[in-house]
């Protein structure tokens, strides 16, 4: 009896937090998505979303950019995590990778405005080789570059942990059975660290769907994502119903990603492909 009361005391704060800041907002978003701008109950918001090409395009755009960002991040993070595993002083390197996440996102975005601007660091460096100033800011490239820069630590950490947990003997066993380096990688290391990649993809893809500050500061509003649309509806057009509808779409998208990248239990009996 005593034990169960202390247990209640322990989980009450978290349950309250969960209820107030996770469940209640989600319920409110769903609720609001059924009201139009003048406060009447309606399904029109969803109708608008699915019938107007703009919103569908915007969704596809968001998914596409989120995919590009995730892919770029993964491309950089996996080899980094792999090398990190074999590096001396790996805790120090890890700290250096985590360090930028402690700095405010907005500060980092402003720093990149400076670096990428017409008279910024990159252009003055290119200028030394006689290359005329290039337009970096407000391009797709700079948007994906900065977004990837910000997300990389969140991809490296889960992959690094997965590689660390991989028993060294499995790599030895693979070599022992005759596998070359890349065969060991594709047949043993990659399949056994895919769980880390999946968590990394979850941690990067989902936030990338609704990036809006970077689209504005670095992408110069040329990249319009669902995040931008929500911001517009809540702050500019004041159409909270439509904003909430897009919010619902994002939530559904998140659940889909979670499902696709989640751990599914392996079936007991599998056919063997010889």
């Amino acid at each position, binding site marked *: 009896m005593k034990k169960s009361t202390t247990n209640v005391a322990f989980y009450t704060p978290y349950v309250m937090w969960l209820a107030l800041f996770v469940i209640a907002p989600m319920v409110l978003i769903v609720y609001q998505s059924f009201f139009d701008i003048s406060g009447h109950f309606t399904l029109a918001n969803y109708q608008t979303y699915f019938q107007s090409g703009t919103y569908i395009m915007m969704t596809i755009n968001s998914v596409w950019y989120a995919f590009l960002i995730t892919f770029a991040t993964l491309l950089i993070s996996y080899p980094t995590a792999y090398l990190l595993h074999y590096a001396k002083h790996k805790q120090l390197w890890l700290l250096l990778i985590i360090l930028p996440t402690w700095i405010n996102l907005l500060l980092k975005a402003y720093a990149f405005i400076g670096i990428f601007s017409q008279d910024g660091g990159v252009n003055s460096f290119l200028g030394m080789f006689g290359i005329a100033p290039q337009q970096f800011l407000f391009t797709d490239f700079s948007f994906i570059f900065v977004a990837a820069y910000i997300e990389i630590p969140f991809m490296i950490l889960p992959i690094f942990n997965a590689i660390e947990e991989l028993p060294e003997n499995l790599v030895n066993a*693979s070599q*022992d*059975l005759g596998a070359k380096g890349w065969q060991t990688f594709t047949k043993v290391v990659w399949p056994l660290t895919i769980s880390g990649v999946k968590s990394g993809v979850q941690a990067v893809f989902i936030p990338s769907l609704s990036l809006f500050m970077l689209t504005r500061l670095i992408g110069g509003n040329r990249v319009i994502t669902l995040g931008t649309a929500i911001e517009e509806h809540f702050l500019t057009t004041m159409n909270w119903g439509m904003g909430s509808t897009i919010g619902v779409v994002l939530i559904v998208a998140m659940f889909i990603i979670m499902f696709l990248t989640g751990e599914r239990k392996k079936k007991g009996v599998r056919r*063997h492909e*010889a």
Partner: protein
Amino acid sequence: MSNIIVELKHVGKRYGDTQVLKDINIEIEQGKFYTLLGPSGSGKTTILRAIAGFLDVSEGEVLFDGKKINDVPANQRKVNTVFQDYALFPHLNVFDNVAFGLRLHRMSKETIQTKVTDALKMVRLQGYADREISELSGGQQQRVAIARAIVLEPQVLLLDEPLSALDAKLRKDMQYELRELQERLGITFLFVTHDQEEALALSDEIFVMNDGQVQQSGTPVDIYDEPVNHFVADFIGESNIIPGHMIKDFLVEFNGKQFECADAGMRPNEPVEVVLRPEDLDITAADAGKVNVEVDTQLFRGDYYEIVAYDQLQNEWLIHSTNPAKDGETVGLTFDPEDIHVMRLNESEEEFDARLETYEGD
């Protein structure tokens, strides 16, 4: 000799300042069961890893079939390993684990199917092909690990303490199966263990390791009956080791008495150590034997009583007897001259063998 398949010549291994292998010289012939026996940290697994190719030796040569393979990577060496923790691939089922090496060698589906089925039959796991590794017991995982290694038909199979994670009963069963498997396949087994009983039961030849050195090599009987030094005598089986003096050839003194023995070739009055195995000691009435001891404690071990007794000089005597003794009773101990084994202090294996040559064989 052409049937030497693996040879280590003056092999050493250093990690920084610590020398884990010192001047290892080993010859391994085809088709025999070899064991590297020693306490943990004695360097036995290091030797195995050097042969498998998982580590580079600091000095010396590793030869396979007469060719130096120091710089040949692990994936090109014609040896396979059964790992201590099995190192089965958890994302593959039993069939795919066993087929792993075969697929790398680009064999046809039918060949792979036949070979895997045969290998699984060999380790008595037919019908388990579709199981996941996590669904198997420790003993079954052990068999999969063996099947995965032997399916590639290596000339030498390296086994790194493969039975250490199994319970006593299963371990005994697997010992029989391993020995039988080795005889059936006719390939060389190099087996690493810290369990001296296991080593004695399985091996054609044992290398006793300590401190990064081979202390003694030979057949189980040689090593048991004629340990070359204190370490080997103590590590292999139970033994009573008593300090003494060699009076002359075939006569040794210990406990203040002189005894006939079967050893020779030492300096007169040389200080030596005398080994008497507990099972060679027979209990008789007090004063009727060669030594009188007082029984201190005894343990019932199932097939024998382990009796601890002390002589007048407070030397401890360990006796294995089928009959119990009484605590506190004084009894006599008898033994034959052949039961006494005399060891010189700090004698190397070569010196020991050379000395044996001088008086044995007649």
